[in-house]
């Protein structure tokens, strides 16, 4: 009898626990974030251009700006964001288990990740691709001339696999020299330990800038892979996905419309373009579907900037930029032959 009542109690308790868990997860991400009062946005261990710490301990970079844009959209305050730095092994788990609200950390959008990890990718905020760096005096001008070369590569990313595939496809017999740390990889290359370095072109541009004599090195024209780097959210909360998606599009759309951090107030006051007025919340009700305030996009542009400004600041020639030319690349606006394209905001 006593045992039976214990079992019943236990069953009741576990039911309550399960119910509690399901009730808690029924709450939408937007509600959880608003209740907490800040956005937990996940980046990775510092990586030049995308997310790094300065000597004052402040995070900056393109992906950090993305986090701030979402915080500005949700709270109207870009500072209400807690940047979490998670290793690449644990990144998707930390998103799936609710530790992070969103992921903005140079994660490549692939089919398997999108369908098997319980996460959803949003529009890419940077299109990258793998390439090679060689010394100018080596006389190599194309990746297809790397026959039998020793190539330095870091482990833990898709770089290694892509390099092996490229070597096999073109029958080059490249031998991989693998490293855990990209600084050691670059040192080995600089000391003549390998003939070329392979990595994502954006990060390699930054690395070359850090070499003692940058003009001695060059990036070969070939691109081995497609690396659309996109923010991601947990699968299953469509409203939250919409918020992050349209925050990315708002950055691009603002650039298309010529709205910048400096002129946003002026545009709001004087513009007669309905597209501008709709986006900045002066007309229409675009915000209602997102569950945000009417000035959500205004806050993004006012506090963070538009996509072009962010690119210039962190990836381009800005003081904290890594100096990748934007013109003619995939990251230019669609009107300039790139892939940055925002669906109409109406």
């Amino acid at each position: 009898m006593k045992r039976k009542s214990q079992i019943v109690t236990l069953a009741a308790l576990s039911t309550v626990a399960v119910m509690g868990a399901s009730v808690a997860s029924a709450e939408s991400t937007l509600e959880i974030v608003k209740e907490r009062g800040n956005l937990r946005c996940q980046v990775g261990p510092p990586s030049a251009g995308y997310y790094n710490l300065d000597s004052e301990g402040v995070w900056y970079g393109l992906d950090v700006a993305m986090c701030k844009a979402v915080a500005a959209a949700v709270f109207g305050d870009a500072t209400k964001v807690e940047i979490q730095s998670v290793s690449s092994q644990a990144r998707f788990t930390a998103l799936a288990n609710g530790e992070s609200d969103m992921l903005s950390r140079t994660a490549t959008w692939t089919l398997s990740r999108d369908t098997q990890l319980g996460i959803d990718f949003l529009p890419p905020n940077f299109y990258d691709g793998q390439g090679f760096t060689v010394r100018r005096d080596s006389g190599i001008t194309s990746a297809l001339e790397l026959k039998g070369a020793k190539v330095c590569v870091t482990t833990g990313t898709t770089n290694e696999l892509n390099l092996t595939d490229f070597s096999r496809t073109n029958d080059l017999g490249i031998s991989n020299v693998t490293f855990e740390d990209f600084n050691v990889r670059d040192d080995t290359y600089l000391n003549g330990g390998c003939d070329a370095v392979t990595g994502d072109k954006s990060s390699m541009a930054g690395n070359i800038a850090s070499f003692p004599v940058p003009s001695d090195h060059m990036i070969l024209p070939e691109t081995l892979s497609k690396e659309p780097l996109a923010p991601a959210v947990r699968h299953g909360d469509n409203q939250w996905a919409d918020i992050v998606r349209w925050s990315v599009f708002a950055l691009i759309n603002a650039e298309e419309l010529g709205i910048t951090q400096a002129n946003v107030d002026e545009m709001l006051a004087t513009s007669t373009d309905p597209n501008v007025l709709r986006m900045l919340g002066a007309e229409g009700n675009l915000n209602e579907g997102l569950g945000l305030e009417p000035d959500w996009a205004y806050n993004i542009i006012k506090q963070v900037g538009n996509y072009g400004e962010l690119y210039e600041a962190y990836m381009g020639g800005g003081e904290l930029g890594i100096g990748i030319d934007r013109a003619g690349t995939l990251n230019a606006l669609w009107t300039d032959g790139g892939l940055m394209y925002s669906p109409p905001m109406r």
Partner: protein
Amino acid sequence: MAIITPIKTPDRAAPLAERSIIGWMHKNLFSSWFNAILTVVTAYLVYITVTGLWAWGVTDATFIADSRRECFENSLSGACWAGVIDWFDNIFYGRYPREQIWRINLGAVLLVLWMAPLWMSRVKGKVLIGAGVVVFYPFLAGYLFAGGEKGLLTQLMVSGAIVALIANTSNMLIGITTRASLKEFLLQVLGKAQASGRTQRNVLLAIVLFVFVAVFLWQMQWTAEAVSWTQWGGLFLTMVIAGIGIASSLPGGILLALGRRSKLTVVRVLCTGFIEVFRSVPLITVLFMATTMFPLFMPEGFVLNKLVQVIIAVVLFNACYMAETVRAGLQAIPRGQYEAAHTIGLGYWRTTGLVIMPQALKYMIPNIVGTFISLLKDTTLVSIIGLFDILGMLRSISKDIPWLGLHKEPLIFGAMLFFVLCFSMSKYSRHLETKLSAGDQH
């Protein structure tokens, strides 16, 4: 015919080979051809290493610059210490708000002040001081570092810790000046030195209560600004994790070791299982489990504190290692000691506390300090799970745009820092050993 002189003949000097540098070198460095060659080769290797390092790290190095590019312009072959210097705040304090850094410094000063009496021979009550550090300091330091609104419980704990600090400091000052303990001094001053034990106790309690109330009222006047643990980092975070680990793994290890040697089957099996499980998995696995898997079992939106999880993991892990060290020390005590303690009527706890442990701990010191040193170095593993301890910070310098690619110098700086910390720990352990074995006549 013998000549007998009444005075001692003067000592002759030792042979040249025994007293001059030449002689010493001949004996120790050039005693054979083979040794001579070894000496020359070694001396040459040391010479090129030292001169190379000196040239790279000092003569060609840049100490003041705004970016790595400037360092290169100054010298292509030298070290660029400017980046490390620029990042000092990050390396030592992490992302702690810059205007609040004084709190960390104050915490460090208080710890030194609290522990200083342990090294002073004139101060009495060392055991109480040590216990006070372990029990009270964490509350004071914890609030000092984290800040925020104080609940009643926090207020009581902080007040208690401040009272303990006041008692400790005044005890130290009195010890230095009069060699008396605080208690003796107070009773002396109040003229109660000859009073009965009960009166003495009441007087002391009244003083403590009075001071406590005064401190409590005073601390209600201020609150420290809240600093989230996510902003903790650098050497400060390393010290927090290692400090808590060191302070709690020894008591935990002693309990586990006693449990493993216990005659009670349940206790013994539980302790043995616990120790073996934790000793057979790598620390990084425990850390990953604590930070990544644990939240999966929790409801969504559950607030979890990664730092607390990490500290719990480090403490449990090291307590298990410590338990085996302690057990080894306990097994070195001959059976006769236990029997002798029992014959004079001591029970289990008093046998352990008064007879066995004091002897065993002396044998364990080298191993205990060894565990402490590896614990301090193991804390750098937390940089893998996204906490910016000192290693995480040192590795971040190479990604900061002005210092892009600067990775050798920070790591060398870190190595020097760790060497200083670990070497002073091991020197202190040697000092303890000699001090404790002074009474041994074998």
